């Protein structure tokens, strides 16, 4: 237990900033207001140590903190005022809860004497945020500030990470206390990392050693547990083909020989169909989301299921497991790797490659290398961007067709390279998350793919770019539609395009108003040059590509369908 001793008597706000510094915070995202002014005032004295990024909306502060946390392995921090400032964070908190992102969101609150009286800008922040956070705590006494911050960071980043809210009454911010900081390493009510059970691991190893057609599903748990290397050793020794969930995507290189692609509704054909042909399914740090499983009644019924997870609440939640292996993936994977035989499953792996051929012919070829002219496809843009960055950039995206296309076709060569809103599917996530990601990984290129719909949900963050000069490459895939909803209308609602066509502004002009360079591309021939211009430009850049208005994302497992019911075109099944 580390202790930082200081006898000075300080204000609660000063104690808060010192606590944050003690937790290693050097960047945070926020927006001031009455009930948090003392903290912003204290921050003024620490500008050299803690960089505050002034966003344009508190939702963006949280999304930025998410982007920051996702790429940097650190806790994202947001600072907001009471009432509307706090309620504006709900979407981001919920998103972070769904996607297990470590955050500490600090909100101001009315003075403790006013609590419960419907005071100006009072909101029941704890009551509102409890269901969407890992922990939410209200501080009413100044002496509790260091203690609460210490717990907040411990809870946010240990075990299965998640968002924490600390709501601080205004009087606690101004009253004085002695500053003394102790890092939390234990809470009796909280057991973040279950101890691995050797018997279960032996049982799992035996099943894996006997397996003829084993298949591994890689989730974000691997990334959160920093178990990428252990995973690689496990997979390479056992020769087991694997696929990733959306959030697990960059844990392993895109072109690793055992990588069979992405799972889920718009995942690759092989991994989806072969889920129902494997004899052993090994889920690692993933939670069997319904976008991955489709209809549970026909999901992997033939297979023995081994589930590695840190969260006991995920075991048997959606899919009944044969063997559960609780613990941190880093530990459990290295333990099991010792017990498994070196092996290869090349014939089985070929069963995936056969589907890859079908997918290439039916879907990928037209999407990435369209031959007969016509409107620009989203896929070719993504493909050209990833190539132009040497597959080294961070890919952030918003929600919709462009999210699926960019996640499918962007290539990853290092972990923590995809920032996407998976569980909640929050439109408006992309731009602020990209800004946060750039602060989290300043040396990397950050490319954010957005739709014309989603960009307008948080387009105010052009203001943050203007203010800070942060460098993000914004690729707007403009199809003039709420494309993903339009796709469902085309497939399942008889092409009745109710409220999905958009009358859009001149995005380049909007960006220009914020001093953001931009270029619009309508012709395929211009694309390479425009991408180079974007990447060479110093500072943020908006590349608007006018893409096919009625493009479709395939393959597709329709909602509630079985993982074997993969569509590759309208009315066309594999």
């Amino acid at each position, binding site marked *: 237990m580390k202790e930082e001793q200081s006898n000075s008597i300080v204000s609660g706000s000063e104690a808060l900033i010192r606590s944050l510094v003690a937790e290693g915070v050097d960047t945070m995202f926020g927006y001031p207001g009455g009930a948090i002014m003392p903290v912003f005032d204290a921050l003024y004295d620490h500008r050299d140590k803690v960089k505050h990024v002034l966003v344009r909306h508190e939702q963006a502060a949280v999304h930025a903190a998410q982007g920051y946390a996702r790429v940097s*392995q*650190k*806790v994202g921090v947001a600072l907001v005022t009471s009432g509307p400032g706090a309620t504006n964070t709900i979407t981001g908190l919920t998103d972070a809860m769904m996607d297990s992102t*470590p955050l500490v969101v600090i909100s101001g609150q009315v003075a403790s004497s006013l609590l419960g009286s419907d005071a100006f800008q009072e909101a029941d922040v*704890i*009551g509102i945020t*409890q*269901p969407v956070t*890992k*922990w*939410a705590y*209200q501080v009413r006494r100044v002496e509790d500030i260091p203690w609460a911050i210490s717990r907040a*960071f*411990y*809870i946010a*980043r*240990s*075990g299965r*990470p998640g968002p924490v809210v600390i709501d601080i009454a205004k009087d606690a911010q101004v009253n004085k206390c002695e500053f003394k900081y102790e*890092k939390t*390493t*234990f*809470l*009796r*009510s*909280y*057991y*973040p*990392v279950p*101890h691995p059970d050797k018997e279960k691991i032996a049982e799992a190893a035996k099943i894996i050693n006997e397996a003829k057609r084993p298949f591994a599903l890689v989730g974000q748990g691997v990334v*959160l*547990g*920093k178990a990428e290397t252990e995973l690689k050793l496990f997979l390479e020794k056992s020769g087991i083909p694997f696929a990733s969930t959306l959030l697990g995507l960059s844990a392993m290189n895109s072109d690793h020989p055992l990588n069979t692609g992405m799972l889920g509704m718009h995942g690759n054909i092989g991994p989806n169909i072969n889920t129902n042909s494997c004899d052993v399914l090994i889920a690692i740090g993933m939670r069997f989301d319904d976008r991955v499983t489709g209809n549970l009644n026909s999901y992997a019924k033939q297979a023995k299921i081994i589930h590695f997870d840190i*969260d*006991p*609440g995920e*075991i*048997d*939640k959606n899919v009944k497991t044969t063997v559960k292996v609780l613990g*941190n993936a880093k530990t459990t994977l290295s333990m099991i790797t010792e017990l498994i035989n070196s092996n290869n499953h090349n014939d089985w792996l070929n069963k995936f490659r056969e589907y890859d051929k079908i997918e290439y012919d039916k879907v990928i070829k037209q999407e990435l290398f369209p031959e007969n002219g016509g409107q620009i496809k989203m896929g070719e843009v993504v493909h050209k961007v990833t190539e132009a960055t040497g597959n080294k950039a961070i890919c952030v995206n918003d929600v919709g067709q462009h999210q699926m296309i960019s996640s499918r076709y962007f290539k990853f060569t290092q972990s923590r390279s995809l920032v996407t809103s998976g569980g909640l599917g929050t439109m408006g996530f992309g731009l602020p998350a990209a800004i946060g990601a750039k602060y989290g990984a300043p040396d990397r290129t950050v490319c954010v793919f957005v739709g014309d719909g989603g960009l307008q949900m948080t387009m105010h963050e052009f203001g943050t770019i203007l203010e800070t000069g942060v460098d993000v490459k914004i690729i707007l895939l403009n199809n003039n539609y709420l494309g993903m909803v339009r796709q469902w209308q085309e497939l399942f609602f008889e092409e009745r395009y109710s409220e999905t066509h958009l009358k859009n502004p001149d995005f380049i002009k909007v960006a220009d108003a914020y001093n953001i360079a931009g270029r619009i591309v309508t012709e395929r021939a211009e694309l390479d040059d425009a991408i180079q211009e974007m990447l060479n430009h110093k500072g943020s850049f908006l590349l608007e590509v006018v893409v096919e208005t009625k493009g479709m994302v395939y393959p597709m497992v329709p909602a509630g369908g079985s993982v074997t019911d993969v569509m590759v075109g309208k009315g066309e099944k594999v």
Partner: protein
Amino acid sequence: MSNKTLYTITIFSENAVGVLNQITTIFTRRQLNIETLSVSPSALEGIHKFTITTFAEDESVAKKIVRQIDKRVDILKAFYNTDDDLVYQELALYKLSTEKVMEHGSVEYLIRKYNIRVLEVTEDNIVFLKAGHYEETQGLFEELAEKIGVLQFVRSGRIAITKSKIERLSDILAEREALGHCEQQL
């Protein structure tokens, strides 16, 4: 409701503000009704005990909600049982008009039959207490309502103790203390 089973969920928590809110949202999300609820300090200082009953389709539902409750940071331990595993009890209070009781006459029969304790007698009212299972306290209520009339009636949530020798919370806490220190992950 007939093919659902009644589960008793026992929860130990830190004595923190808002724990009940955290628990109830887990029921709300699954659209489960809380049938009864009882909260009080436990034998261990600073730890509160919740006893909640709820009807669920099957055991897997009970298991899932218990895991989701257990996962909350302020919760020390949560588990579920069916009636067979438990010794359980509820309390009920009945307020009757003294005049009506006098008119009725044969109160001794009721007091013996239901093992009633008389808590209070005034010129106006008499208060009965009955401890028992739901059927028993309800049975008395119905009989009193029919024969005498009940002015006020209240029933407590269930309290319960397991029959088997289960792990005691203090043991669980000691074990966690030994294993649980977690170097911060990130």
